[in-house]
């Protein structure tokens, strides 16, 4: 069995990034946002492809650029008093409709150089060295930022009013977290795919919350769970000849069930 170092790098890097963000999502009850994020990521990737084809530049850079306003609008709606459920419904309705329209436009007007299937199903096996380096860089930045933010985000999650009185700018942190999640989700969409991305964002912290005895453990266990599932998923996918992101999803689910049965 051969494991290309590029595959391992993109799988471990993306898993580490998702695993590092997952505790922040759990602490801030951003699951509604994380679950809807792949929809806007897919739309952004399709728009990025159109933008780079017509205006030049890197499609991934365009995708990140166009994705940020979508997430900002969602957070703004919630700050304006729209319920999370309603805001998310509007967000998903817009991004899903937009994705279908833009993907149809791309497929009928552009000779697609990159398979859109890889964004939908995820395919780390197509990774180039450029992808591997980019993923490692994203993972490093994400781990650095999330570790710095962990205690503040936990404080806001614990009691946002006390956090505000103790000097934390809660609204700023809402935008910051939303934009971080968006940038990472769009950048790494091709590795895990649209279908499994929200699982990769949500389940590591769900496992860690069952097992951890402190915030520090919560963070570390979440990253380790995610990385273990990604390496295991890659090995199993090569061995069984199935999609790596599918095995990642199955393993995270398995870990969650085991944590439920064994955790305190």
């Amino acid at each position, binding site marked *: 069995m051969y494991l290309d170092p590029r595959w391992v790098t993109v799988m471990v890097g993306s898993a580490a990034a998702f695993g590092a963000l997952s505790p922040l999502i*759990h*602490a801030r009850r951003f699951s509604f946002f994380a679950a809807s994020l792949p929809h806007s990521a897919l739309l952004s990737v399709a728009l990025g492809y159109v933008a780079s084809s017509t205006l030049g530049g890197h499609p991934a850079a365009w995708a990140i650029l166009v994705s940020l306003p979508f997430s900002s609008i969602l957070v703004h709606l919630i700050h304006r008093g729209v319920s999370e459920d309603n805001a998310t419904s509007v967000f998903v309705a817009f991004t899903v409709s937009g994705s279908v329209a833009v993907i149809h436009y791309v497929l009928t007007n552009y000779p697609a150089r990159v398979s859109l299937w890889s964004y939908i199903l995820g395919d780390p096996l197509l990774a180039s060295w450029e992808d591997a380096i980019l993923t490692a860089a994203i993972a490093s930045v994400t781990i650095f930022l999330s570790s710095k933010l962990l*205690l*503040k985000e*936990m*404080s806001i*999650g*614990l*009691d946002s*009013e*006390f956090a*505000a*009185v*103790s*000097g*934390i700018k809660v609204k700023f942190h809402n935008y910051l977290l939303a934009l971080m999640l968006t940038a990472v989700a769009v950048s790494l969409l091709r590795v895990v795919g649209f279908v499994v991305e929200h699982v990769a964002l949500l389940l590591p912290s769900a496992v*860690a*919350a069952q097992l*951890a*005895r*402190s*915030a*520090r*453990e*919560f963070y570390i266990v979440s990253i380790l769970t995610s990385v273990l599932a990604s390496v295991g998923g890659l090995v199993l996918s090569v061995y069984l000849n199935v999609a790596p992101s599918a095995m990642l999803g199955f393993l995270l689910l398995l870990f969650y069930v085991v944590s439920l049965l064994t955790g305190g």
Partner: protein
Amino acid sequence: MHKGEQSITVENLTFAYGEDVILSKNSFSVRGPGLITLLGPNGSGKTTFFKLLIGILKPLEGRVFLNGEDVTGDPFKAGVHASYVPQLSAVRRDLPLTGLEAVEAALQGKERAERRSRALEALRLVGAEDLVNRKLSAMSGGQLQRVLIARALVRDTPIVLMDEPFSGIDPRGRENLADLASELANDRLILLSTHDPVLTLNKSKTIVVFNRGVKAVGSPEDVYKLELLKAAYGSGVLIIEKCLHVLS
């Protein structure tokens, strides 16, 4: 020891949730140090009043001053002067945080070593040393309340607001917390809300009777009277064997 002014002043404060008026052009002022009890029945708007005092809510009209500074609708400014102990129900206990981490998190922008030593000191002050490594989800109501008080104290503000600290606590725990609040009020202005006056009556310097507005302010001897309590509690106040009983 907190030196300098310790005061809460409210001028013409008006607030409503839509049609539901909580305060209408209310004014009052209290000074510290000492324990001030905000007494009122459940649903009287005590929590809303506290949120107005610490700038979480903006009044429709009027101003809030803490230690002479206008902090109306500004939690950052209010946070310089006052800290806050919320009701237990306002805190998420499902997060995997230890007692020490919950207190440490209140000290943003400080070095880790300083955060840790100050958090340990605050936990010691409230008699919660044994909760340093315990998860919030594994604590009783009384234990969690002590951690939340430590979290408020670690910020070292001259004013501390405590919102219904006795709710959800067993009788023994209530007495201990009342003693702790009284002790802390030696050098701070502690404003404590409760619907049950018995625990803090003898320990309070001032009683504020509250129900959809400030109904009376004064010493316990001046305020703990049938007609004044009836203004807040309605007919739920009885004299039995020459003793006042509040049936909130």
